[in-house]
């Protein structure tokens, strides 16, 4: 992330450029085009680079912005400034409609969907009579401030780049917030995000609309710069070009979008001038070079160029933690003194004909540590997924503090105060341990998109991070707080997941093989931590293979084999239980 000083220098340089004596007007026009492209690419960085939603259709949203203002200003002579909110509104509505469908698409279906509507909208622009069909709309009025008409590209330059800078700052602010962490969590998969109460479909829609609005803004500016619109710049090829800029700059890097747009725009210009001279043809040969470059970049520098630039700059200082920040409000706890905290009754899960979990019933009392053990493939993880709502029950029920939570979904279960860790660690490896853990407190914050962009969320952020750092210290990883989570040993990453779960302020903690990959003394520390949590009234259910760890720690053990419960009881009962011994030692016993 960029600190303030480089941004100020950048702004100053931008402001001075048009005033350089002898600056060819043509260069200013190029810079205008770079700025326009950068706006779209910035949206794509957020959408694709950060959120992992690849779109080839962004150019169509530029079209919404451009056509809206072109139509309204030419037919109804509305002032261009008034059409800006209308253009953004229309594009926003279109984005919500397309987005509701698009963000639900999984994996590679999503980019294919964007290709489909990208092409369709392009054809639509060219077929509508009111929009001038393929000829488009001409004599769009220029922007004007007071009586001063911004007819000149050099005047538009300031307008365009002011918007670029504003958009960049807004986007950075958004990324560095509670919503921003949720956006980044999209990459880690739906299951991990939803487990902490993040509504992934809603967050995806937010990013989608945000990117579309930036594209529409670019289109609106474009219409008043060119003073004419036609379908060509809003087709699929343009959409590909924008994606190219984002990838080239480095997906995930806001200022990389500017770098990528600059490179691509300049390259296109050079190619358009040089290639015809070389080949004697006026054809649009730059597409060949672009295509090849795209392939080459993906082969040699998949992360784009901005990270290469960043690696030469000093890194941003670690986030400051305010130890004295007031604590976050504790969650409303659902505790009970009578009856079980968690109760499975006849829980069954069948995949097709295969019954993975068969009529499993057990209960967990408040303030108890219960272990779920069994040989590999016994159905422990499936049982876990039934409790956390990742999988739906085929039969039976799960009750928590007296409420039936069967089939209510992961987010609702998290809201009840059930937090979990994952057997296959689901952290965001590039993000710091601190930010990963802060994700766990998502439901304890309120700040939305607007307050994040406007930086009204700072108080809450300080408190969120103070809480995250307290939980990290509690699990004994304070010295690793500012490192990328992916740089820790696997065992430590599991502990980070526990800290993240604690950030939710849970009543029940579900741990999937927490001790795997830990050294002996680390296991001891983990056991001590769990005992301490129990003493504070926390209930814990864990799946574990390490018998020594389980035997010394738990109050109650449930043993599964082939999907069914074969035994339960105190550790010392389980140790001598004949069915358990047979399951563990197999036919060779």
């Amino acid at each position, binding site marked *: 992330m960029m600190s303030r000083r480089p941004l100020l220098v950048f702004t100053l340089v931008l402001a001075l450029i048009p005033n350089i004596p002898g600056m060819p007007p043509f260069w200013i026009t190029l810079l205008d085009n770079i700025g326009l492209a950068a706006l779209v690419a910035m949206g794509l960085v957020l959408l694709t680079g950060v959120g992992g939603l690849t779109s080839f259709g962004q150019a169509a949203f530029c079209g919404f912005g451009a056509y809206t203002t072109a139509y309204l200003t030419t037919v109804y002579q509305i002032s261009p400034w008034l059409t800006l909110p209308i253009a953004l509104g229309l594009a926003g509505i279109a984005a919500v409609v397309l987005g509701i469908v698009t963000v639900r698409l999984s994996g590679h279906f999503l980019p294919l969907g964007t290709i489909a509507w990208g092409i369709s909208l392009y054809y639509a622009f060219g077929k509508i009579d009111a929009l001038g069909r393929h000829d488009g709309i001409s004599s769009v009025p220029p922007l004007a401030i007071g009586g001063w008409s911004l007819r000149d590209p050099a005047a538009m330059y300031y307008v365009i780049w002011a918007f670029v800078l504003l958009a960049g700052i807004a986007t950075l602010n958004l990324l560095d917030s509670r919503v921003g962490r949720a956006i980044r969590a999209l990459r880690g998969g739906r299951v991990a995000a939803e487990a902490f109460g993040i509504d992934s479909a809603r967050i995806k829609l937010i990013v989608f609309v945000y990117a579309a609005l930036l594209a529409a803004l670019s289109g609106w500016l474009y219409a008043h710069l060119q003073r004419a619109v036609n379908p060509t710049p809003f087709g699929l090829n343009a959409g590909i070009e924008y994606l190219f800029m984002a990838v080239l700059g480095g997906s995930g890097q806001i200022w990389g979008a500017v770098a990528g747009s600059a490179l691509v725009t300049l390259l296109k210009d050079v190619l358009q001038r040089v290639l015809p001279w070389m080949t004697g043809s006026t054809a649009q040969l730059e597409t060949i070079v672009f295509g090849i470059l795209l392939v080459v970049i993906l082969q040699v520098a998949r992360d784009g160029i901005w990270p290469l630039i960043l690696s030469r700059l000093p890194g941003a200082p670690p986030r400051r933690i305010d130890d004295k920040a007031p604590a976050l409000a504790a969650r409303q706890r659902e505790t009970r003194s009578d009856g079980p905290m968690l109760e499975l009754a006849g829980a069954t899960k069948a995949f097709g004909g295969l019954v993975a979990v068969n009529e499993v019933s057990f209960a967990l009392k408040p303030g108890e540590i219960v272990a779920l053990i069994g040989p590999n493939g016994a159905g422990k993880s499936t049982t876990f997924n039934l409790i956390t709502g990742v999988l739906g029950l085929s039969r039976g029920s799960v009750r928590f503090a007296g409420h039936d939570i069967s089939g209510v979904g992961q987010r609702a279960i998290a809201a009840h105060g059930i937090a979990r860790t994952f057997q296959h660690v689901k952290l965001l490896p590039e993000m710091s341990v601190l930010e990963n853990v802060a994700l766990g407190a998502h439901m304890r914050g309120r700040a939305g998109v607007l307050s994040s962009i406007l930086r009204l969320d700072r108080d809450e952020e300080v408190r969120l991070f103070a809480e995250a750092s307290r939980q990290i210290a509690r699990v004994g990883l304070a010295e690793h707080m500012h490192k990328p989570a992916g740089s820790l040993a696997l065992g430590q990453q599991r502990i980070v997941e526990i800290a993240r779960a604690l950030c939710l302020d849970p009543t029940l903690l579900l741990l999937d093989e927490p001790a795997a990959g830990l*050294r002996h003394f680390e296991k001891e520390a983990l056991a001590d931590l769990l005992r301490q949590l129990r003493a504070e009234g926390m209930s814990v259910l864990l799946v574990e293979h390490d018998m020594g760890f389980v035997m010394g720690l738990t109050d109650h053990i449930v043993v599964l084999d082939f999907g069914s419960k074969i035994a339960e009881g105190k550790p010392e009962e389980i140790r001598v239980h004949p069915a358990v011994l047979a399951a563990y030692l197999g036919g060779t016993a």
Partner: protein
Amino acid sequence: MTALFSLDNFTVSYGKVQAVSDVSLNVAKGEIVTVIGANGAGKSTLLNAAMGLLPARGRMTFEGQELAETDDVEARVGLGLCLVAEKRHLFGSMSVEDNLVLGAFRADRSAFEGTLSDVYARFPRLLERRQQLAGTLSGGERQMLAMGRALMSRPRLLMLDEPSLGLAPRIVADIFTIIADLRAAGVSILLVEQNAKAALDIADRAYVMELGEITRSGAAATLAADPSIAASYLGLGH
């Protein structure tokens, strides 16, 4: 004893995290060697990297020939090194027989019929099910098919990753009998198992792996008799 297969200072990393560090081990001709250890100790990673599925650093020799540090899984199959992976990796939508036919993809075509009847003789269940799709087999049959498919390439060293995983005790016993038979037929075996007792019963030598490192090694019988091993890996006794 000449080593058929050896690893020297073998290291495997995921990003910045080392999953296997500086492991050295060897397997002699006609030997069953087992690697035991807890979940997450790096046993599967070790086998996958030895097969070339994961990048690794260190020296690796097979039949005196040094294997490059490349990811050339296919060349290893050609040399007679074969892995039956933990996930079996069968071709689920293809018939049992097609799975076996593909097992011989790199093998000498002239010996194909003989090898196929040999595999069917070893696993009569597969002959019964030869036209059935591999995806419809039971867990034990899948393991048999995975081993049968590996045998189709006429391997000199068979690496088995958790062959007893998720199988009923009776079938586990069958599988281990077959492993013993294979040694008698001249196939050397490197066996990774969580069912440490079964593995130590059948193996000649054993290595114990913890957190990516080899911490103990020796004759299987010696390790099986060691009380600390018994406490950690041989069930629930303390």
